[in-house]
């Protein structure tokens, strides 16, 4: 059986159920790298120039982990998934870059996903990918339909049950859900929305368990995945007009939505050197300072970010929100 390696980084959180389903339908085994460790981050960083962004370094660390543990590594070049909205350069050249900086990696299965080139090209790309496993186009078609269904189910699950991607992936993979979800809801002190890309929000190593820290402090955490596509689109249109990069709705759409929907505070998480976020997070910040209703904090992560720094800033931010709530409650009385 052919083993396909999928790094648990970057677009894993967005598309893992699709990829897994597609490859399993075609009779391959999927190997996923474990959650990020310090070793992975260090080995990934050592391969690229210093100012490459953190998520890409982490991604390469995962690829390095998978070397020798699988027959192929699946690294698609997701160019665009919406008409006239393209992805950041780092995603566009990801397979080529991996090939250049990790020459010892197993053969890379790459495919171009570009809806702007038309359906024909997209279907061709999918068939090309399927050709590694079967010659039968109908089988590939069946697998891709099943995969698409898995994708829809996955997103439906997240937005209807207010789940984060790792939780949803656990449910889909059949691992019994930990009951952490309901225990804290009874006594929430504040509702905090976190905006940012899933590969930063849910990678507990690079963000130093940010979400669980918030939850342990009895806060309700909202993430971009809990919003439906329409809500994201609406808020994006309100804030910046048309989205310019593919995955920026997670930042600017979610930010715009939560700014006007009565959460107690918003925390933006971005990686140092992220091009799209450097402009988009700033747009959210500007909107926040214009509205003056919801406190907003932006945190920048890189491989040198220390846990103590994150904790201090988080505590200060939460203290400020608790105090604001207390004063509001007292003045109401």
């Amino acid at each position, binding site marked *: 059986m052919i083993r396909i390696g999928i790094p648990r980084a970057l677009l894993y959180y967005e598309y893992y159920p699709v990829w897994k389903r597609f490859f399993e339908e075609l009779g391959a085994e999927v190997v996923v790298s474990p959650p990020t460790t310090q070793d992975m981050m260090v080995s990934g960083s050592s391969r690229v*120039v210093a100012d490459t962004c953190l998520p890409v370094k982490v991604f390469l660390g995962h690829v390095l982990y998978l070397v020798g543990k699988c027959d192929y590594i699946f690294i698609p070049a997701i160019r665009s998934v919406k008409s006239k909205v393209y992805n950041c350069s780092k995603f566009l050249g990801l397979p080529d870059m991996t090939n250049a900086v990790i020459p010892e990696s197993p053969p890379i299965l790459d495919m171009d996903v570009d809806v702007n080139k038309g359906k024909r090209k997209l279907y061709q790309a999918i068939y090309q990918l399927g050709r590694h496993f079967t010659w039968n186009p109908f089988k590939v078609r069946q697998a891709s339909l099943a995969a698409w269904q898995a994708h829809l189910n996955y997103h439906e699950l997240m937005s209807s049950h207010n789940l984060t991607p790792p939780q949803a992936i656990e449910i889909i993979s059949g691992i019994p859900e930990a009951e952490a979800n309901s225990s804290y809801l009874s006594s929430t002190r504040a509702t905090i929305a976190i905006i940012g890309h899933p590969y930063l929000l849910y990678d507990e190593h690079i963000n130093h368990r940010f979400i669980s820290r918030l939850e342990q402090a009895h806060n309700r955490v909202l993430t971009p995945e809990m919003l439906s596509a329409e809500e994201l689109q609406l808020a994006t249109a309100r804030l910046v007009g048309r989205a310019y990069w593919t995955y920026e709705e997670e930042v600017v759409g979610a930010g715009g939505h939560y700014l006007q929907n009565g959460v107690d505070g918003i925390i933006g998480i971005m990686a140092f050197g992220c091009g799209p976020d450097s402009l988009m997070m700033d747009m959210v910040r500007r909107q926040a300072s214009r509205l003056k209703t919801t406190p907003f904090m932006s945190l920048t992560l890189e491989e040198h970010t220390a846990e103590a720094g994150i904790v201090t800033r988080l505590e200060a931010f939460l203290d400020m929100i608790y105090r604001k709530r207390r004063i509001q409650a007292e003045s109401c009385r």
Partner: protein
Amino acid sequence: MQVTFPHMGYIYVGIAAMAKWLNVGVVVPPPTSQRTLSLGVKYSPEMVCLPFKLSLGNMIEALESGADTIIMPGGLYGCRFGYYHKAQEAILRELGYDFEMVSQELGIMHMVKRITRGTPLREVITGLRFGLTKMNVLHELEQMVHKKRAVERDRGEVSRIHRDGTKAIENAADHQELKRVRQEYLQTLKNLPTVSPPIPLKIGITGEFFIAIDPFANMDMDVELGRLGAEVCRPLSVGEWIRFTPVPIILGLREKDRSHKAAMPYLSRNVFGDGWQSVGEKVLHARDWDGLVHVEPFGCLPETMARNIMPSIKDGLPVLNLIFDEHTAKAGVINRLEAFVDMLRKKKRRQVKVCV
């Protein structure tokens, strides 16, 4: 209506010429200076790239001197450049300026129509042609200057002629005068007394477009290289960029297409910006150039990709990477260039000896 636009190399010459031809009021922003940079840095997001900061500074200075319409290209994909106009508009509005931002997001024709307001299309095209011709003449002059600066006998002579020539091209009122100016300056350069350096070097400049061609942003890098006795080859220039020559485009003979083809084995997709070309340049000119200076603003997305891929090209050119931001100092750039040129000379001398 007073139209303005941010600086990028000598592009102001072309745009001012078009505007004058079409009777559109134009405000050329004051030359980029330390003040421009400080203004840009002050109001820009912290981590955005240098061209954003410089062009924002230009816009502020132009609005201060009475402009009310800003032309900013946009809508190019992938790289942040395509989004500049929106972010800059938001920033400038927040600063309280009243203006109109015109970008090509809705198509180039839309942009042209909005600026020219009812001028017949035929006239618009002749105006555009005049501006483009000026850019092409500037490009020719620049190429000659790069060639001659490496071998000039009297230091600074070529730079002086370049300066005068640019001024003369800027002041040329019609095609005939432009032709005369072109002849005159190319001839002067040709007849300049020269000395031949012991080991002639050819160094290419590639990388991010803005940094490569803007003399303020790249700290007059081409002048410094010329002073060190190296002939500069810079395929990136506004003249090259806008030159419309159908036959080479169809046959794929343009520098851009050739470099993309050369980059194929290493980078098989467009990463937008100029990343693809940067990678290709290293392969394409491995025989005819001696070295390559790769420039980029700090945090540039496509060029970071290019810089990651470049080391895997084993038989390409030696490359010097220079990263620019608002803290880059000229002394640092010159130091690195000197060391790079020394290294290339040494290498070449050894090669020559082996051949003999």
